């Protein structure tokens, strides 16, 4: 799988997250979160896991999180990845 076009998934509501994907030459992941201090590393690990599972090696991944749980992070990121595929 690769990020072929811009895509977005998620909401700004509490316990959810917004995922923004854009094509890029290298892989960059940025995470903003209201609970970054406590859970930043765990969010990052979960994001990396999903990206690796789908073989994503390039693209800009931006996440703004409001305390989403693991399964929400996975679901939103996978939805965004599917939306970022070529038509």
């Amino acid at each position: 799988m690769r990020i072929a076009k811009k895509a977005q998934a998620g909401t700004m509501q509490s316990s959810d997250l917004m995922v923004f994907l854009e094509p890029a030459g290298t892989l960059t992941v940025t995470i903003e979160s209201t609970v970054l201090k406590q859970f930043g590393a765990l969010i990052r690990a979960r994001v990396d896991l999903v990206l690796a599972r789908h073989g994503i090696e390039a693209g800009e991944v931006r996440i703004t999180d409001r305390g989403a749980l693991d399964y929400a992070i996975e679901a939103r990121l996978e939805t965004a990845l599917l939306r970022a595929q070529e038509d």
Partner: protein
Amino acid sequence: MVTPLLSSDDLRQARDLIEASGLAFETRYHDLVGIFQSGRIVAVGAREGRVLKMLAVAKDLQGGTLLDEVVTALVGLGFQAGLDSFFVFTAPGQATSFEALNFNLLASSGKSALLEYGDGLRRYLARHQKVVTPGDNGAVVANCNPFTLGHRYLIEQAASRVERLYLFVVREEGSLFPFEQRLQMVREGTCDLPRVTLLDTSCYAVSSVTFPTYFLKDGDPGGAIQMELDLLLFAGRIAPHFHIKTRFVGSEPLSRTTASYNQAMHRVLPPLGVAVTELERIGAPGAAISASLVREQLARGETSGLTALVPESSRSFLLSREGRRIWDKKEVAA
């Protein structure tokens, strides 16, 4: 569910809710969306470019998720339109409710706060990290519409007084000459000055976000507050990143908006550690050189006076096919 507000009844209800929240209903926006409950609009918000505005939630329903839903929809629409960061102006007391939505506070004055969603400022600064050199640096922010001998003089003078001069060219479109052409004229007109580093302002200085009245005609009462936020953002976030100790500006005898921006600079920047040096404009016979004077002459089709007003590099661009296409109405018709 968030829906676009289109019908005249929707607009009337939206206006009532916005005005009941103490905000002004504005007719300029790209998207206007709302949430209905039992036929009544209970939340509303609009997007004009990167700016989210007129965000209002019915009094009896505040504190829930309605604002989150409206902002989500507006950010999604903006993202589809190709934008990746968004701004909101709000009362300083409301800033925390946007920070809870992952907005970052960019600047706050007594009356108003500017927040950004999307981490754009950090990405902008990171993008220019490699041109940052520690030292006694200065800055000029200029539109260069077009690049004149007046700009050249200001930049030369400023560069001679600092270790490195960052020349921020206004990124925003809305001027006669498009950004790429302005940047090109500046690049050619300053390439012999080794201490000058060219940058663009993105939307973080003199943009339709931070300083919309610059691009309008004189006389918007809201302009003064936003001007202050523009300068607070410069002093608080941009200047420290580039080690900028002095901002240089040309004196402004002509435009009222620019003159009051200069005054605001003297008031706002020095207490925050950025000195302001205002340099007298150089004068051609009869009048100080200014880009607006050049535009006036071009509008009349006069090109004979250009030599006294712009450097050779700008002149050859203005007289080129590409340059004429921008200012010469005959050329468009031809």
